[in-house]
């Protein structure tokens, strides 16, 4: 039965007010923090302090089983939590840990679950991702980082690059080739690697949105055999493509951070247009800007509905394509919409939008920061890759 989650049940209203009560007392005020693009140690500390409180309430692991530090709540309750996170400008949880949690919940041994999920749920462990390599970007399956078995250990050699947040992390999820004779998608394995292991080194990369990414080098890095996640050689089907779409699953059904960044920006720009006058006219009454804002509202609404759809069980009724096709559509759309939206916001604000810092910067330079960040839309795969996957795996066109 079609139901987009009306906020009209007693349980949901109670849950929403519980969330608000907590945010009213604990959420940092006027704290616009994006972990991907902020290296300030004081702000990082404030961010982690808040999320550890969320961890204490078990709200990071809201939908996980109680046995694994969660509360076993439903997707819809998670959606309500995220709605309120938007209303209170709560910075998102670092996404890599959530991605790892999903894979660990599905594939981990009991020991791996008890150990790793605790750190993620309580926000005591941060995760980096070791997937992309200098010669393996969109064509991730051509990666060459090697792992060979040596007694009770695996030994890793190779280089990862463009890893987000690795320099903040204690652990890394690493894709490596365990079968030296394999090609492409076969013979890859996933390892959960402590980053203080001897032989690991990093070199910083600075991106255009003020964030740091990293090269990570593995030089005869020995990790114990129980660091293998899932079956040896099966990382591609199990971890990477495990849910029938080429996205990392995120700890049960969880909206990722992107729809929320977009909604926040929309609220910011709409508010700006409603409170700013130009040529004696409120910007929100300018006919051109009105259409621009309505276009943004439309795109944001679509992104929100994509999240709803990812929560819904799929049946044959109403609409074409399976879960994979719909996931590719959702990702292709937001990856293309995000930079388009950023450009429209820059056009709306106009020449003053290029300033950042100081009292003359419009909206503290948040629009230009958003524009810069929008070129990070390739993370998790480019829009072209999503379109290619949609065409071939989603719609059945020849490869």
């Amino acid at each position, binding site marked *: 039965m*079609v139901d987009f989650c*009306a906020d009209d049940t007693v349980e949901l209203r109670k849950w929403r007010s519980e969330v608000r009560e907590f945010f009213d007392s604990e959420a940092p005020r006027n704290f616009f923090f994006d972990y991907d693009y902020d290296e300030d140690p004081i702000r990082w500390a404030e961010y982690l302090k808040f999320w550890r409180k969320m961890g204490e309430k078990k709200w990071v692991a809201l939908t996980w089983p109680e046995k694994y530090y969660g509360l076993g709540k439903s997707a819809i309750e998670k959606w309500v939590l995220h709605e309120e996170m938007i209303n209170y400008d709560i910075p998102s949880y670092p996404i890599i840990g959530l991605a790892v949690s999903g894979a660990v919940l599905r594939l981990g041994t009991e020991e791996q679950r008890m150990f790793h999920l605790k750190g993620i749920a309580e926000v005591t462990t941060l995760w980096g991702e070791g997937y992309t390599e200098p010669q393996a970007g969109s064509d991730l399956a051509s990666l060459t980082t090697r792992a060979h078995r040596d007694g009770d250990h695996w030994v890793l050699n190779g280089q990862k690059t463009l890893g987000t947040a690795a320099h903040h992390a204690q652990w890394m999820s690493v894709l490596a080739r365990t079968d030296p004779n394999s090609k492409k998608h076969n013979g890859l394995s996933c390892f959960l690697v402590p980053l203080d292991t001897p032989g690991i080194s990093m070199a910083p990369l600075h991106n255009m949105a003020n964030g740091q990414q990293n090269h990570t080098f593995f030089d005869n890095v020995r990790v114990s055999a129980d660091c293998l996640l899932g079956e040896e050689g099966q990382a591609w089907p199990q971890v990477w493509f495990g849910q029938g779409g080429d996205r990392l699953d995120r700890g049960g059904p969880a909206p990722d951070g992107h729809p929320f960044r977009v909604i926040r920006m929309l609220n910011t720009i709409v508010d700006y247009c409603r409170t700013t006058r130009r040529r004696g006219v409120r910007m929100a009454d300018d006919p051109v800007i009105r259409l621009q804002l*309505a276009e943004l509202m439309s795109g944001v609404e679509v992104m929100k509905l994509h999240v*709803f759809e990812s929560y819904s069980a799929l049946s044959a009724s*109403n609409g074409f*394509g399976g879960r994979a*096709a719909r996931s590719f*559509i959702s990702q292709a759309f937001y990856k293309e919409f995000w930079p388009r939206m950023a450009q429209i916001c820059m056009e709306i604000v106009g020449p003053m939008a290029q300033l950042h810092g100081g009292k003359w910067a419009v909206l503290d330079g948040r629009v230009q920061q958003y524009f810069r960040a929008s070129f990070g839309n390739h993370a998790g795969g480019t829009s072209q890759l999503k379109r290619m996957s949609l065409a071939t795996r989603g719609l059945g*066109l*020849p490869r």
Partner: protein
Amino acid sequence: MAIDLNFNEQQQLVQQTANEFFAANCGPSLARRYENSEDPYPRGLWGKMADLGWLGMSFPAEYDGLETTFLDMYALYIEMGRHLVPSPHLETVAICGELVAALGTDAQKRRILPAIGSGDAILSFAFMELDGLYGPEGVTLAAKPRGEGFVLSGTKTLVNYAGSANWLVVAARTGGTDAADGISLFLVDPKAAGVTLERTANMGGYPLHSVTFADVTVGADDVLGPVGGAWKTLDEVMMKAAVLQSAMIQGAGEQVLEITVGYAKDRVQFGEPIGKYQFVQRLVTDVAVEAANLRLLALYAAWKIDSGQPFLREAALAKAAASKAAAAMTFASHEVHAGIGFMNDYDLQLFTTRCKHWEYNLGDARYCLERVMDESEGKLTTFEAAPATREMVQA
């Protein structure tokens, strides 16, 4: 508590029945036959649709209706779009029938609703004027009081199926202090003295008419709803119908996608199926992305309607996206098809020309985006549930 975007069993049954029925009884050849046809729609098909209960499905039971949900209608409309069904269903049932059900007197409902449901009456919606505006300011046709009734003078255009109609539902201006005030609805016999119908050639080959009213007398019994106060209900009915029009575009889009994917797989050039070329794949995926997004927006609006929530913003978002998608999907498909798609013998052009009518009908993208802004003024967050609940919590 679960988020669910799937039809319930009843709606699945409607969709499946409609798909099978229209596949057997309609399709491109029927659409071709009724394009620019003297006989504007297939009466046999209309009768069968009546037998299936689809003409009175949404009406109250006391007027022989089935009182189905809006989503049942939505499911039917997806299939009417997919199969290019030539019928006056949108005008007769979803607009005029719903206006009679919402505003009519008991006598008017008894006279009209059972006759629609049985397939005996066709109604046409005379709203649009020469400026091509969908908002209340577009309604300028004058209705002046005379005796117990009114006299209508002016011209309506894009009146679909007017030549077959038993009644026209005419939106006219009886006065008013602002655009939305002073709009009244009238039931008019198209054969009445002073009514002139001119059929106008158009892209989709629809039986669109310009209708001129030269001092046409309308009795008090044929005023539909409150004099001067019809806009609110009229607007709601039109926006609901806009969601159904969006559902038709959704169904048509899914069919265009299927045609396009099939062609890209079969057509070989440079020794390969063209669907292997990524410029072609890009265009094919454009159709898929547009179809998927408009479906979500339309379904969301339909759910809002069925669950009794405010829906004007969501309906406007749906029709804006559907109007843009109607153009974008057929454009991308033509780019993939090139020469063959340009030929009248190939079915794609049937979708393209009808989609142009649907793109405009009941609100083009610009009008709907303006509505989105109007509806969202005063609320900052995109989550309309939040502020209301917040007040409740504080209280």
